[in-house]
């Protein structure tokens, strides 16, 4: 299978207790954790009343996407995007299922249209006025690796820069005991290819090695935890990692600072 070269132009990160990339880097460097952190991000892209009302996944995805674009100095209105999430918004799925079981005619139209897997992608493109393609994918425990693969494949197909946004949120209700996910965890990367792209990625047969970084240990209970070996390697600036890419499949990523 093929190998791709890529560059990381910008990084956005947000997790319960580590609200930003600087906080994540400090934690990885010496275990420091901020004394207080908000329960969920409040991205200024959303109008104040929407910031409170926005589903957790939408607030999370927009916060990290904005941070990654800022870090890259990229115009968000121009970037094609790949949104990936294992479960989408489990709180909304729980609401939909519970309401359908009790009072189906009272389903909220807004929560229904927010229940689509591409809700975060939709709010993002609306918020930044982006007409470029946006997709929303899922691949169970391989959701991050498959999203990353699609992003680098879009680069190989000619896109100059692609935004990857990966996130999962807190599970709720009966569904949460079947599809568990704790807290909020997301990372966004602005990726590019071209001459001198230092990093490489290859899809290969085999299972990924178990994670051994402190972020993976801290956020193991969130469904997007399989992305964390790469996030930890990015904080270190170089190194290799293996990402779960499907049954019997892994992505090998080599970062060269």
């Amino acid at each position: 299978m093929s190998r791709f070269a890529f560059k990381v132009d910008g990084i956005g990160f947000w997790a319960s207790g580590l609200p930003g990339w600087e906080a994540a880097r400090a934690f990885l460097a010496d275990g420091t954790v901020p004394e207080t952190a908000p329960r969920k991000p409040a991205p200024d892209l959303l109008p104040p009343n929407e910031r409170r009302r926005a589903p957790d996944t939408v607030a999370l995805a927009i916060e990290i996407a904005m941070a990654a674009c800022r870090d890259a100095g990229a115009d968000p209105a121009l970037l094609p995007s790949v949104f990936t999430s294992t479960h989408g918004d489990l709180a909304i799925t729980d609401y939909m299922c519970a309401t359908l079981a009790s009072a189906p005619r009272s389903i909220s139209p807004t929560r229904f249209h927010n229940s689509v897997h591409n809700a975060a992608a939709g709010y993002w493109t609306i918020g930044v006025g982006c007409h470029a393609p946006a997709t929303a994918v899922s691949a169970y425990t391989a959701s991050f690796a498959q999203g990353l693969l699609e992003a680098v494949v879009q680069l190989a197909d000619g896109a100059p820069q692609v935004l990857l946004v990966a996130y999962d949120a807190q599970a709720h209700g009966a569904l949460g005991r079947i599809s568990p996910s704790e807290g909020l965890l997301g990372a966004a990367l602005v990726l590019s290819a071209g001459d001198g792209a230092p990093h490489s990625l290859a899809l290969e047969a085999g299972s990924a090695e178990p994670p051994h970084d402190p972020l993976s240990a801290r956020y193991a209970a969130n469904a997007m935890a399989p992305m964390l070996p790469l996030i930890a390697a990015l904080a270190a600036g170089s190194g290799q990692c293996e990402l779960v890419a499907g049954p019997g499949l892994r992505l090998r990523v080599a970062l060269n600072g």
Partner: protein
Amino acid sequence: MDVEQTPLPASLAGWECRNNRLAWLALQADGFVDRALAARQTYGAASVAVVMGTSTSSIGASEEAYTRLDPAGNFPADLARSIVHTPHSLGDFVQHALGLTGPAVTVATACSSSAKVFAQAARLIQTGVVDAAVVGGVDTLCGSVLFGFNALELVSPERCQPFDVARRGLSLGEAGGFALLERSGDGPRLLGWGESSDAHHMSSPHPEGLGARLAMEGALQRAGLTPADIDYINLHGTATPKNDEIEAAAIAAVFPASTWASSTKGWTGHTLGAAGIIESVIALLALEHGEVPGTLNSVTLDPLCGPQLRLENGERRCRHVMNNSFGFGGNNASLVFGQA
């Protein structure tokens, strides 16, 4: 064949749910499973990707579990299977049902899902990740979409009438379909695709149809074709007042009178995440047989429609056909297919 009466084989019992049953039935149709297994033999299981589209996947199983919670509030034992309560249920099922070991992913961009799978899979083939891909889409009716679309007041009280001046909304449908994409071969060609975002509203299209136009123009550009090269367009044509208004205007603005266009949702209903694959197959049948569908149930076209819009079925040799699929979140995809 009845989806209610056709359980999955014992080896696939872990994926049992109504949506995956429909996927299983669709795999058996028209000899598709044999073609997919032949591709596995030719290229190797790891070199065939699975790229599936769906809007709600098997959320029907989650909805059912909530009606049968045990006294402690837990899922009943027969539904306590994580894989059927997550969007990738469909992609994971198809990958295992066909014994494939390459990349497998589920695209869930609402009603454009199973059009976008063609673009994503074509990129995987063109960039050398795989040699072939099984693409498709499956969506079954469930409480979420039945009550959700009613809450949005988008459902017609009568059979849907796409592009009719008196249209009152969509009719919901369910469907499953698949296609096998290969780098070369004797089948029809996927010549181009265009993807875009409206950047306007979560559940209402851009008022000037900007996203729809960008998707169609992108597909033409990638195919190296002009609007006059397109002989038939299978439109998104949901029969909601707004979708058909903007799509009719976009078609009238972009295409010459020689292009034929219709919505086939009068036959199928709006099959949501399966609409892309079902309507691509209808466009491909027009390409193969020269039998071009009109627009069922509709009587008087909205005056916004150009001469492209056709109510009656017709016959013409098609050189190139297009399929449009537009979804919530302002997510649009257009595909262009050509003769072998």
